C-alpha cells in the first residue's frame, strides 16, 4: 500500500469522485436512447458534468495519495471492492421514471453536500465544490421538474414514479450515515458529516414529492455499504464496460 493512502481525505475524495463517475457513466447509457431529442441531450449534458467533476475529485485524490497513481488509473484500474460510490449511484437506469427519481434523490443530496463543502478547510476541495455546485443546481431543477411532471401526470406515469421511489428509497439511508472516514475529515475540517445533510435534503425532497402527488416511503429496511466497498451486483457490469479498453490495451493513447 502507498503510505498516504491511509489519509482519510484520500478515501473521502474517492467517495466524492466515484459517485460522480459511476452515475455519470450510468446516465451516458441513455445517449441515443432518450425519449425525445431534447431529453437525450439533457441527460448527456448531465453525464458530462458529472464525469468532469469526477475527474476533478480523482485528480485531487491522486495528489493526496502521492502514490504515483493518476486519476485515470484510479478510474480504470480499481476493481469492485475498491470503489467507494453509494449504491444508489450504481442502480440500473430502468425506465425513465427510475432514472429521473434516482437522479432527483441523488441531486438533492449532491446539492446539500457541495453547499456544505464550500466551507471546507481544504481550499482545493472548496474550489471543486464551488465549480460543481453551479452545475448541480441545474441538474436538481431538471430532475425535480421531471419528477413533478411524472408524478402529477397520467395514471401510468404516476404509478411508475411511485414504484421507482418505493424501490430506490432503501438506498437513500446510506447517504446520511457517517463512519470513521467521515469523522476524521470532519475533525480535520476538510469534509462534512453526512448526517448533517439530512435536514437540507428533506427540505428539498418533501415539497417536490408533495407537488408530484407522490407518497414519501416510510423509512425502514435499508441497503448500505457502497461507501465502504460493499456493492450491489450492478457495479461490476459498469466497470467491465468502462474499464475494458485500458485493461485490454494497457497504456493505450489516442
Amino acid at each position, binding site marked *: 500500500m502507498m503510505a498516504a493512502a491511509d489519509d482519510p481525505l484520500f478515501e473521502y475524495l474517492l467517495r466524492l469522485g466515484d459517485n460522480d463517475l459511476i452515475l455519470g457513466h450510468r446516465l451516458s447509457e441513455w445517449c441515443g436512447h432518450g425519449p425525445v431529442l*431534447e*431529453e437525450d*441531450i*439533457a441527460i448527456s*449534458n*448531465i453525464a*458530462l*458534468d*458529472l*464525469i*468532469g*467533476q469526477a*475527474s*476533478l475529485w480523482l485528480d485531487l485524490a491522486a495528489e493526496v495519495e502521492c502514490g504515483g497513481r493518476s486519476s485515470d488509473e484510479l478510474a480504470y484500474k480499481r476493481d469492485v471492492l475498491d470503489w467507494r460510490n453509494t449504491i444508489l449511484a450504481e442502480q440500473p437506469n430502468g425506465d425513465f421514471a427510475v432514472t429521473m427519481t434516482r437522479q432527483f434523490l441523488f441531486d438533492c443530496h449532491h446539492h446539500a453536500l457541495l453547499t456544505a463543502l464550500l466551507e471546507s478547510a481544504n*481550499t*482545493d476541495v*472548496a*474550489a*471543486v465544490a*464551488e*465549480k*460543481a455546485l*453551479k*452545475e448541480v*443546481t*441545474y441538474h*436538481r*431543477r*431538471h430532475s*425535480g*421538474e421531471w419528477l413533478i411532471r411524472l408524478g402529477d401526470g397520467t395514471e401510468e406515469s404516476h404509478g411508475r414514479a411511485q414504484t421507482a421511489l418505493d424501490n430506490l428509497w432503501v438506498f437513500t439511508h446510506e447517504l446520511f450515515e457517517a463512519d470513521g472516514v467521515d469523522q476524521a475529515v470532519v475533525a480535520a475540517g476538510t469534509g462534512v458529516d453526512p448526517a448533517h445533510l439530512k435536514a437540507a435534503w428533506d427540505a*428539498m425532497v418533501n*415539497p*417536490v414529492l408533495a407537488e408530484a402527488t407522490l407518497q414519501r416511503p416510510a423509512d425502514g429496511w435499508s441497503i448500505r455499504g457502497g461507501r465502504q466497498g460493499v456493492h450491489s451486483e450492478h457495479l461490476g457490469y459498469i466497470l467491465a464496460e468502462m474499464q475494458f479498453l485500458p485493461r485490454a490495451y494497457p497504456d493505450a493513447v489516442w
Partner: protein
Amino acid sequence: MNDPVQAISKTDARALSVRAMLNAVVDPEIPVLTIAEMGVLRDVAVETLGLGEGGGASERVTVTITPTYSGCPAMAVIEMDIRDVLLQAGFGEVRVETVLAPAWTTDWLADTGREKLRALGIAPPVGVAAGKGVLFGLDPQVSCPRCTSANTHMLSRFGSTACKALYRCAACQEPFDYFKCI
C-alpha cells in the same frame, strides 16, 4: 540593463503583447469568441530565462485558464491552441495552468462577447449569476436574438453544449440557443 524596475515593466509590456497574440485563440464551440472575451483567460506571466540558442533572450510564458464547465471538452483544444500560438511566436517554454477558483461565471463575459453571441444567433446570458439557486425560481425573460421578440419559451435547460439552453421564439418561430447564466 540590470535595472529590476525596468525589467518588470518590460515583462508587463511583454505580457500585454502575449494577450494580444492570444486573441487568435477562440472557443472551438463558439468560434466568434476569444478566450479573453469568454473570461476563460485568467492571467499571463512572462519570465526571462537567460540567453537562448540564437543569442536572444529565451522566455517562459505561463498562461492561466479556467474551465467554463467541469466536463467542457473544449478545454483540451484551447490549451493546445494556446501552445501552438505561443510556440510559433518563438517562446522557449509555454506553460498552461488551469485554476478552478474563483469559479467561472457568465458575469465575466465581455460586452463585446455578448454582442458577438447575439449576432451569431445565440442569446447572451440575462442578469447576473450571483444570487441564483432557488429550487424552482423563474427562468429569465430571454429575447430572441433574431427578431428581438420577448415572446420566447424554453424548450430544454440543456442545449447543444454544456453552456447553453434551448429556446424557441413564438414570434418568428425560430429555435435558438441561450447562453445560460451560471
